């Protein structure tokens, strides 16, 4: 069966510091991968998606970037965090020929 992992689970970072969040998927090959951000009490905002290694599409201009160095690894990064980057970051995967997305457990990021 497929499993999606995210780490760290929680993170507190000062403004201006770098960020690296990691997501990995097990039990499948060539998945579509997604990064979402969820502000407190709000909906899910799609940040990036990837249909293959090295292929990244950005949905919203922002202070963040994403990379996919391996088939089942998706990384969300920032060179300098802003207060507005605080939120709950969710990674999701889907098989290319299907529509269902499966979410990871999330990373709670607080920027102080």
């Amino acid at each position, binding site marked *: 069966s497929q499993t999606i992992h995210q780490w760290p689970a929680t993170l507190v970072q000062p403004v201006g510091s770098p960020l690296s969040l990691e997501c990995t998927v097990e039990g499948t090959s060539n998945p579509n991968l997604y990064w979402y951000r969820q502000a407190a009490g709000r909906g*899910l905002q*799609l940040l990036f998606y990837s249909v293959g290694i090295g292929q990244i599409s950005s949905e919203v201009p922002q202070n963040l970037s994403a990379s996919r160095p391996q088939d089942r690894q998706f990384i969300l990064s920032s060179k300098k965090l802003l207060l507005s980057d605080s939120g709950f970051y969710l990674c999701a995967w889907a098989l290319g020929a299907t*529509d269902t997305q499966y979410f990871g*457990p999330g990373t709670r990021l607080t920027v102080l």
Partner: protein
Amino acid sequence: QQQVKQSPQSLIVQKGGIPIINCAYENTAFDYFPWYQQFPGKGPALLIAIRPDVSEKKEGRFTISFNKSAKQFSLHIMDSQPGDSATYFCAASSGGATNKLIFGTGTLLAVQP
């Protein structure tokens, strides 16, 4: 046209009641409509999904009703329980290689014992 509008924003029902959450869309290219359930501090989990070729789908106590002509769909939770208290998101997708989902803004459901 890419939006999915969800209502109500929050809902309180008594145990055993039938909460109903509604969603509406404009893009007629959407052909997949899932509902996700999210507990605090957790990632959303797929609850049930429907495609436009059927008007209703049931899985346990959860039912999706779909009205293609009105471009609306809704989630009904039969015999609701306190354990159903969570945030519910509807979503829509037009498929394709990217499987991008457009999410509603969420409904916070509280089921009182």
